[in-house]
């Protein structure tokens, strides 16, 4: 932890709740760590933390982000090292305090300290557009906007894009936060039948570049059930492969985004089951 680094700060945000921010933070964080990057994931959802649970570290939380901000604990004491990936760390949120316990100065200090020790800082934003969400995006170099192909999620993402363009440090300096769209819970069959907004629809409406498409999959639920990011729990599954490709795009590689589709026989097409 001593070599000088300069982390890239990512915020995983969406506006709407339940679209997959925490799942995606865990999956992307683990994928980056798996590729040898030194990663810290920070839970900004004060009062409703869940990143610890999705990462399977819920029984190892001693100190949290609020404790560090209030000087109760030093940063290294609060960081939890993942048991599977030695490069992956978690800074949990407090479960008992309210959102006002986060201060702008406190967050700035924590991010500044982490920047020198990690390659990537991934901030898991709470839902909404209140304090927790604006502080999570405050120091971001890049944002991952998690969106489901569904009207309310797309609308809220549009709102969040507006905030990223006005309330972040970068925006206030006149620069632009890099924005990446991550479409989750995509169901190719429903899109093909015109029942779900297509990728093109969402891209046209939000007009930000596409980072990846995570297909709806039972593997995602299974992974969170056992407290392991899907990229570790079933690395060959379709959602895990999509997350791995997304991390490579984050690192600057140009890989075309494939729209997920499943090969299905004529019988399934006519009498197909619902989404897995």
């Amino acid at each position, binding site marked *: 932890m001593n070599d000088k680094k300069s982390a890239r700060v990512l915020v995983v945000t969406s506006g709407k709740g339940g679209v997959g921010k925490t799942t995606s933070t865990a999956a992307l964080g683990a994928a980056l760590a798996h590729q040898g990057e030194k990663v810290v994931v920070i839970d900004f959802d004060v009062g409703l933390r869940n990143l610890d649970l999705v990462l399977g570290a819920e029984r190892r939380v001693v100190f949290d982000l609020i404790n560090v901000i209030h000087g109760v604990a030093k940063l290294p004491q609060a960081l939890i090292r993942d048991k599977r990936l030695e490069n992956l760390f978690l800074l949990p949120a407090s479960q008992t305090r309210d959102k006002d316990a986060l201060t702008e100065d406190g967050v700035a200090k924590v991010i500044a300290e982490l920047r020198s020790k990690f390659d990537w800082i991934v901030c898991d934003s709470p839902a909404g557009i209140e304090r927790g969400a604006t502080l999570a995006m405050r120091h971001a170099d890049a944002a991952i906007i998690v969106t489901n192909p*569904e*009207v309310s999620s*797309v*609308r809220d993402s*549009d*709102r969040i894009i*507006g905030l990223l*363009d*006005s309330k972040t440090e970068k925006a206030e300096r006149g620069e632009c936060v890099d924005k990446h769209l991550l479409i989750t819970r995509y169901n190719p069959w429903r*899109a093909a*039948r*015109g*029942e*779900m*907004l*297509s990728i093109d*629809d969402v891209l*046209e*409406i939000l*007009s930000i570049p596409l980072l990846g498409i995570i297909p709806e999959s039972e593997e995602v639920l299974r992974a969170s059930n056992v407290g392991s990011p899907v990229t570790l729990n079933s690395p060959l599954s379709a959602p895990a492969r999509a997350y791995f490709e997304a991390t490579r795009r984050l690192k600057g590689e140009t890989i075309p985004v494939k729209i997920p589709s499943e090969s299905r026989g004529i019988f399934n097409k*006519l*009498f*197909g089951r619902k989404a897995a």
Partner: protein
Amino acid sequence: MKLFNLFRRGSAPIARERLQILLAHERNAIHQPDLLGILREEILGLIGRHVSFDPDKVQIKMDRGKSVSTLAVDIEIPNSRGASVIVSQTARPVAGRRRKRAVSEIDQRVA
């Protein structure tokens, strides 16, 4: 049932259309919270520094179209002989595709 669904038009096109209309409106509303009010204050302040006029005889209109918005300001200024001249200023910004641009263009044209 599934066979029947194949022939039914999906609802995604409706979702797309509703979103496009809604967001076009919201982007303006959020990023130009009270553009009209701000422009009104600033323009009246500027003119008020040079001439006196009756605040009731001021008309400001804004029309937001799909590709072009217009801002019209009419201020009735009494001249020394008591008659009226009308100062009129019109800005025709091209509405930005996304956020803010519309605001800054209007600001530039008016400034």
